[in-house]
């Protein structure tokens, strides 16, 4: 049992992993990520890739909603911007995929900042509704600007190539995706060790007090929108190259709701919460599918109502988590860690 943590230098006090237990857990996790693909089937690798892309998007949304307190229903629209920009750059201009991904993320950051302008005047519910409107407007532009995006038709994107290896299998994409997850997570965690991050948190907690203390609300809110949209655009650009086909149906308001659910269920305001939430919400429909398949002998009509069961479970899970554990899976994980840390005095 630990009776306290005693640091003897600023470096160890400000480190990302301060105790041996934390370092060991992180090491085990990284080991798992590195070893996993060699033992996993193709199906599980697909799931892992989906989780990676969702995690990047969830971390982006968490920067905006979890850390800065700006509720945003525009996730789907921003991902669409990232995906279509990356796809169009690769297809129409023939740019290498890594350049189009970076430029797509920057473009999405710009669009995000643009749609963050209402946050100057709006808070809470009104901002949520404004971002809802932004989502619908972006999607309308995507489906109606035929000359640019092909309208409602799909955009086909070729596979990326890294150091000469074509990334056209789940195994190869896994490394790219999870490397980007690592970079995103590291960047975000370090963001919140800088004064920008602290400003964001101050805005979330009590923005009028933050303004009184000299934080320029407008500038930092726009910065938060831009940073968040950068990662969301990155996630969208990855989808474009992963699925090789970009259609508007992937980026509807349901996707925005899905990502909000991810960060709320996972835990607002934390990178590990985003990972938990993304994993949970991505694995849940897959789990239900498998369950349905195995029950097919007993309930033959279960395959036809499976989409409805998935939708119902989605709604039910959100409601249950909000009522029973509003701080999300991260809180549950913290409780488990605390239990073992304080044992035998964990009451």
């Amino acid at each position, binding site marked *: 049992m630990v009776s306290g943590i005693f640091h003897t230098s600023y470096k160890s006090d400000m480190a990302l992993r301060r105790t041996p237990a934390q370092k060991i857990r992180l090491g085990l996790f990284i080991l798992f990520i590195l070893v996993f693909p060699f033992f996993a089937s193709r199906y599980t690798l697909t799931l892992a890739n989906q989780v990676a892309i969702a995690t990047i998007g969830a971390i982006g949304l968490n920067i905006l909603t979890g850390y800065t307190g700006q509720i945003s229903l525009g996730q789907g629209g921003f991902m669409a911007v990232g995906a279509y920009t990356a796809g169009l750059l690769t297809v129409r201009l023939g740019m290498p995929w890594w350049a189009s991904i970076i430029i797509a993320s920057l473009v999405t950051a710009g669009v995000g900042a643009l749609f963050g302008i209402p946050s100057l005047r709006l808070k809470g519910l009104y901002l949520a509704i404004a971002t809802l409107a932004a989502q619908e407007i972006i999607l309308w532009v995507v489906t109606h600007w035929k000359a640019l995006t092909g309208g409602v038709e799909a955009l086909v994107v070729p596979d990326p190539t890294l150091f000469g290896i074509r990334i056209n299998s789940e195994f190869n994409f896994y490394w790219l995706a999870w490397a980007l997850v690592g970079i995103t997570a590291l960047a975000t965690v370090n963001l919140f060790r800088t004064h920008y991050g602290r400003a964001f948190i101050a805005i979330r907690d009590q923005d009028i007090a933050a303004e009184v203390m000299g934080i320029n609300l407008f500038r930092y809110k726009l910065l938060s929108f831009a940073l968040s949209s950068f990662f969301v655009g990155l996630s969208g650009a990855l989808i474009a190259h992963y699925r090789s086909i970009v259609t508007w149906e992937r980026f509807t308001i349901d996707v925005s*709701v899905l990502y909000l659910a991810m960060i709320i269920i996972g835990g607002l305001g934390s990178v590990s919460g985003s990972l938990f939430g993304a994993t949970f919400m991505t694995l849940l429909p897959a789990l239900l599918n498998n369950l349905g398949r195995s029950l097919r002998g007993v309930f033959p009509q279960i395959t036809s109502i499976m989409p409805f*069961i998935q939708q119902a479970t989605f709604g039910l899970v959100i409601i249950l988590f909000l009522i029973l554990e509003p701080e999300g899976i991260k809180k549950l994980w913290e409780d488990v860690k605390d239990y073992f840390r304080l044992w035998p005095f964990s009451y």
Partner: protein
Amino acid sequence: MDLFIQLTLTGLTNGAILALAALGFVLIYKSSDVINFAQGEFLLIGAYVLFSMMVQFHLPWTIGLVITMIVAVAIGVLVERLVLRPLIGEPIISVIMATIGLSSLLRAIVSTIWGNQPRAFPPFIPSKPVHILGATVGADRLWAIGIAILMLVLFNLFFTRSKEGIAMRAVADDQQAAMSMGISVKRIFAWAWSIAAVTAAIGGALVANIVGVGPELAGFGLRVFPVVILGGLDSIPGAIIGGLIIGLLEAYVGGYIGMGLNQVISFIVLIVILMVRPYGLFGQEIIERV
């Protein structure tokens, strides 16, 4: 001129139904401070229940309508008790997400019971064409406008003359003061959600009468937001006027400008209103104190 009158009547019909849905939304917000993202699903449930009463149980539409209203009241009370009661005092994002989750759940339940293919709805309002001022419009649209206006007048009377209505306005204004006057706030919440469900159900029945029954009815729920923001989140006359304005705006833009712009014009108006006058035409300004 013909086109103008045609568009006006279409716009007024859609606007009246939007106003009905918005009315329920504003009611819930006024009395319990909750944003109900599931309002579109209440419309859906109303339409489907009436459909099944008339098609599957072969009941006349009057009885079907009464049963629909009873079901709507039951659902309103259930939702309030099971989902909203535990979330009193939680931050707004939790409440928003809870109603979003609820909308998913309700839509899935409706699809499970009735499937998600659009069905033809047996019209209980005659749809023979009527000529007004040189334009032709189906009689069912006129009936829809009439019924919606009737309901809005009834609600106005309810809120100004009846005891329960005045109690609801008191709770919306100041819960603590209302409680100290002996008004049961829990009962008022149940009332608010029931009335909201009933108005949405009737709106859904009216829409289904015109366009048939299908899961896309829930799209009405999204269009409620421009209406309530335009009118003011806590203003009942605002919901009515906002609904009519948005309905007319969509009709005119669709008719005169086209290009599919009518789907998105209400959201553009929404952003403009939010930037210029966030509390809407009739809403009350919230002054935040630190």
